[in-house]
């Protein structure tokens, strides 16, 4: 579904991504794992159009979407749940969700119900300012907001960051549920254990290059991965 060919991205004066090639098959959960500074976030940001790649191609299905403007990429069906949640703190939960659907002009009530069914907590808090939600609820809101654009592919940047272990578990079971409902997922995580357990396909990114690839299970039993990321 999504194909990345030899992507190179310069970010802040250094080459953060040094020619990576990978694929995200339709309907799967794919994860990129790696340490801080490995280039995971930069990869996602360049797919979303937020940073321009130096070279390389990004294809969605047969279409070249390299360096399109971010709003064009969202309207093609790719959405990003940014690292650190980035909800709009002074806006209500509903307003946050509606902004997720900003590029759609059709009726939203159906999708609002869908998001509320995934996250009943958001329905309870729908008229509350997003900044008053707990960290876990804000993460749910960030995911719900991204879903409001009815994405084919949802990219998630460190959804477990700064959350309690129980909440992380919740988030991951919801990621799986969203995937079962037909949304392809590209997930990047430092919490490699959790990510590999739900991933169909996984890549290890080290200093801007992909070093290991395989299914989630394969990587879980891979000695090098065990040593470096699973502890």
């Amino acid at each position, binding site marked *: 579904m999504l194909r990345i060919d030899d992507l190179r991205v310069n970010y802040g004066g250094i080459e953060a991504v040094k020619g990576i090639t990978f694929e995200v098959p339709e309907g799967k959960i794919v994860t990129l794992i790696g340490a801080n500074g490995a280039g995971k976030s930069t990869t996602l940001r360049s797919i*979303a159009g*937020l940073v321009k790649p130096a070279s390389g191609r990004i294809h969605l299905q047969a279409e070249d979407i390299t360096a399109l*403007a*971010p*709003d064009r*990429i*969202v*309207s093609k069906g790719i*959405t*990003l749940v*940014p690292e650190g949640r*980035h*909800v*709009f*703190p*002074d*806006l*209500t939960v509903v*307003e946050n969700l*509606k*902004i*997720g659907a*900003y*590029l759609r002009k059709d009726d939203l009530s159906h999708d609002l119900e869908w998001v509320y069914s995934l996250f009943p907590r958001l329905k*309870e*808090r729908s*008229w*509350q*300012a997003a*900044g*008053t939600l707990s960290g876990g609820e804000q993460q749910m809101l960030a995911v719900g*907001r*991204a879903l409001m*654009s009815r994405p084919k592919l949802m990219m998630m940047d460190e959804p477990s960051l700064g959350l309690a272990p129980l909440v992380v578990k919740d988030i991951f079971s919801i990621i799986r549920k969203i995937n079962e409902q037909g949304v392809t997922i590209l997930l990047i995580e430092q919490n490699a254990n959790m990510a590999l357990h739900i991933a169909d396909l996984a890549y290890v990114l080290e200093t801007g290059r992909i070093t290991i690839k395989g299914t989630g299970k394969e990587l879980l039993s891979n000695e090098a991965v065990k040593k470096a990321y699973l502890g």
Partner: protein
Amino acid sequence: MLKQKKSKKGVFITLIGVVALLALTVVLENVLDPTKNIMLFTVLKKGAVYALVASSMNLLNGFTGLFSLGQAGFMLLGAYAYAIFTIPNSARENVYYLYGGSAIHFSLPELFGGGAVGLILGVLLALILAGIVAAAVAWLIGLPVLRLKSDYLAIATLGFAEIIRAVFQWDKLGPVTNGANALKSYPTFSSFNIPGGLRLSTAVAFLMAAVCIAIILLLINSSYGRAFKAIREDEVAAEAMGINLAKHKRLSFCISSFFAGVGGGMFAMFANQVQAKTFTTALTYEILLIVVIGGIGSISGSCIASFLYVACSEWWLRFLDEEHFIGTFKLPLMRNGFRMVVFSVIIMIVVLFFRRGIMGDKELPDLFQKRKPKPGAPVGKEGAK
């Protein structure tokens, strides 16, 4: 911010309130003798003009989060555009006497056949043109300037306002702008008083301001308004959600400038004459002060604050500028200029005790409805930061 049916009710109440206010201004102006209550009507008219300009500034600074200080510049453009298009042909010779007549040989009210119909249509069209001129210039300036953020944007727009003021006083443009001299003789609010009949000047000012502010409110509550607020809250997330930052910032800048231009035209109608030197940075700061006092992100706050501000600075504190005696004891400090000292102190106190302005980011209808408290849900926005 409000539930659908709640907001419908709120809109209804607001609408009734505005109609009642309009009726009140008509009654006031015809019952009270305007020559004996000059200050009251001055404050009402100027307050209406300032309310519009403050709302336009709030749209940009409060709702889109773009800190711009170019408001006086856009008002100047609007005021000049309005005056130049509406000065009657017969008066042009007189107004432009230093330059041997005007370069423009038409007057919109006269193009529409003069009389009451010509006046109404001509003034309306001139005000819209005033807005369009300001918006067009804003679009051009926005191209380079909107790449800047916060303080840098403020400095750049401030610079623009200063430059435009100098340009309009340039002698070579005299046949159009009348150089450093005043433009006058164009239709003002008083032109809407029916001779020997109803006095409508204040009501006209209110009506124009109300229509424009209503449009700003509709915009803020539309999906565009939501996108503006998203940009204010978090540019990164807004961009990731598919909001085109450059386009929406430009849109907000142009619309804000449009209404500042219309407000400038209305300011010209209020002041009876237009002169570039009126539109200094001090004017922008006055408007900014109103926005801050009213509440950044609250249109009703801007409206309330503008009337309070204008009333305080022009009217209620006037007595401080005069000498007063208790018996034979002359009160100290009371002399010309003391008014501004007291006024500044009041403003400092207001800003200290109402950090978020009079209204915060609430609108007037929000105050009449309580949010249903949810069990276990924290109330208020203290956790927002």
